[in-house]
């Protein structure tokens, strides 16, 4: 984007000087030069403000007049100088980023290193990830995960599949397989009824879109299978939507598009979902803004949610972003 703006600015500046040299010294030529030069300065100024973070609207508004004034006051050399300055800033930023931050990981919680008596087990994840924990304790943690919703349990179970203890590994596999088996059985049933046609067909398409989405949502489909499930979800959702408006299906479609990385299409649908309560759509819009790097919008979306009226996990996210 910045490169394009600079190209336009250079072209405008060139036109301004070309026109001035060809037209001589009359006042009309001077006005034309001023207008073209001002347009070039404004375009280059926009390129400079694009350097700021996506959500920094206020800072961008303050910077634009300053950049414009500077570029207007420095004909010919203003744009090349700004370009050189920008390149320097970018290099400095990269160096600064590389030098100042090192990646560290959170220390694992190891109940067997704790010397204080009376420690209670906390997260199943830390128990499962720790090869020093006795096998029976890890089996217990796995059994506890059998009662936890799939979206939370699946990543933990999947991590255990590489465990070097076969008992733990096989049990984790069995738990994952049982979850996936239930969903696939439901998909098969819906596909059979869908194929049978009749009045039920639209309802089955709706169910299929939801079931394929469930596979993805619970982390049970990975890699190419995940992509396939999302594509099937979209196809069935489109079929339902083609027959008439359906807010829930539109939301399902938007989430599938979001998961496929088609963010603009997803955003357009999220924004059009006026029929649903704001609390249903805002979290997805916030997530989408976050995925786009637009943290100011993400915060603005979350600020519109009342933590007291949202589910506990989301409430924690809302509180965090409000405090940040």
């Amino acid at each position, binding site marked *: 984007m910045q490169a394009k703006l600079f190209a336009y600015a250079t072209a405008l500046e060139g036109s301004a000087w070309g026109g001035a040299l060809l037209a001589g010294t009359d006042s009309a030529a001077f006005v034309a030069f001023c207008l073209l030069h001002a347009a070039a300065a404004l375009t280059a100024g926009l390129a400079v403000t694009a350097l700021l973070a996506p959500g920094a609207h206020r800072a961008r508004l303050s910077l634009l007049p300053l950049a414009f004034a500077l570029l207007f006051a420095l004909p010919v050399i203003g744009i090349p100088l700004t370009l050189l300055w920008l390149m320097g800033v970018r290099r400095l930023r990269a160096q600064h980023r590389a030098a100042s931050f090192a990646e560290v990981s959170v220390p694992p919680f190891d109940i067997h290193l704790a010397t204080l008596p009376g420690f209670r087990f906390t997260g199943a994840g830390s128990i499962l990830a720790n090869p020093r924990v006795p096998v029976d304790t890890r089996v217990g943690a796995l059994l506890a995960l059998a009662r936890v919703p799939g979206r939370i349990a699946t990543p933990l179970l999947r991590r255990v599949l590489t465990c070097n203890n076969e008992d733990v590994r096989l049990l984790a596999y069995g738990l994952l*397989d049982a979850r996936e088996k239930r969903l696939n059985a439901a998909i098969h049933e819906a596909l059979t009824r869908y194929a049978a046609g009749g009045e039920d067909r639209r309802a089955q398409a709706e169910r299929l879109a939801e079931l394929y989405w469930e596979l993805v949502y619970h982390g049970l489909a990975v890699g190419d299978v995940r992509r396939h499930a999302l594509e*099937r979800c979209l196809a069935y959702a489109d079929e339902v939507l083609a027959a008439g408006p359906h807010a829930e299906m539109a939301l399902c479609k938007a989430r599938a598009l979001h998961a496929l990385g088609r963010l603009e299409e997803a955003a357009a649908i999220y924004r059009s979902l006026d029929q649903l309560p704001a609390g249903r759509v805002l979290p997805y819009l916030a997530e989408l803004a976050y995925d786009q790097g637009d943290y100011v919008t993400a915060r603005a979306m979350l600020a519109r949610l009342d933590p007291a009226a949202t589910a506990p996990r989301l409430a924690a996210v809302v509180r965090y972003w409000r405090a940040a």
Partner: protein
Amino acid sequence: MKADITLLLEGTYPFVSGGVSSWVHQIIRAFPEWRFHLVFLGSRREDYGPMRYELPANVVGLETHYLFEPEPPPPLEVPEPPPPVMGQVEALHESFLAGVPPAQAMLRMAAMFPTLLEGQRLTRDHFLRSRAAWEFVCNRYRRFCTDPSFVDYFWTVRIMHAPLWKLAAIARTLPASPVFHTISTGYAGFLGALVKARHGRPLILSEHGIYTKERKIDLLQAEWIKDNRNVFQRDPTEVSYYRSLWIRFFEWLGRACYDAANPIIALYEANRQRQIQDGADPARTRLIPNGVNLARFRPLRDQRPARVPPVLCLIGRVVPIKDVKTFIRAMRRVVNVLPEAEGWIAGPEDEDPGYAEECRNLAASLGLTDKVRFLGFQKVDELMPKIGLTVLSSISEALPLVILEGYAAGVPTVATDVGSCRQLVEGLTPEDRALGPSGAIVGIADPTALADAALALLTDEARWHATSRAAIARVETYYADHMMFDAYRQVYRQAMEQH
């Protein structure tokens, strides 16, 4: 005709096809100089079809027993067992408690065997229906059961113990032979311990998978085992009482077999260590890896087409332990990248028809109906020249014969990191490793990794040929069947010479 060796087989040869059954067939045919008597233990008659193998000429007897067939109605009046016998039962169960040395339980179990085998003083009806047995069950429920349902406890105890009397009855009538050889622990292994106690002849144990471990995993996930505790009584990290009762039951059956058997044979080191961990005496354990008939597979190498066929073949029974679904999911990616590729599933589907149907449904739901072919049981010799890779997506294996058969035919493999697969692909000793990889190893239930590993081999002819050469060299150097037969010939001779 009197047999030289009695094979005790649970849920396998000759009614179920698969790796273990092929191995048993191989062993019987390898020793035409000895006569074999086969004892097949199954769950219910209706669970098995016709025989899958033509019995070799040196099989002189086959008896089939089903442990969970309906029983004739019990007598109206059940006599009470002699009090000392119930005391023996009580003492044996006390020695199963945590903290008591397992050796004590083994001694008490051995002391129970004559009572069980004699068949009069402690009958099945005594244990299941007498007042003394009722008191025994009630007493133990009060002392140990953490599940509130006595009804479930009562029936669990009955169902769990009932097959033991059937096994004792089999042992009573089983003809003596110089050697008894069980291919697993579990019920067959317990029968082995009983026949050893009855006839005093050596018992050999060859374990392919580890029975107790596989049972444990099944039981931990079994949906038929109830947990009747309410939300206040339940600790979600605790294995429910009946589940742990079943697991302990099979652990003790395994221990009884380990206590009676010598030698205790494993296919590879990790399984030998597991046997020791489960109670086997290290001094009695030994390793004898599987082997294949090289002469049978060598000519197949010349039948291969010039170009590597883009065919991935899973050869095995369509059962959950083979994780056929991961293979099907991997095919979604393989076909996305290499549209001409095909996935073949060559193996019988009748052992678990429900699972086979799930696999077919999965292939349909992934849009792979024309790319994943279910071939049913196939002759390996006919398949090998037509495929580019053998694929093993199993979640548990021992030392899979199918990989070795593929190697002998020059076909590399992509296998999951289970059992001895890594050893078969990457080599065990430094000399073995120097041969190079004969395929690729991936994690379990990881379709993307499986697909990528297969694609890397199928799309790179030079690499495929290098792995094929390593596969041939590896199988010819370390896994020829004559090595396995020599080892078993020695094991059988030593057992026969024992007096």
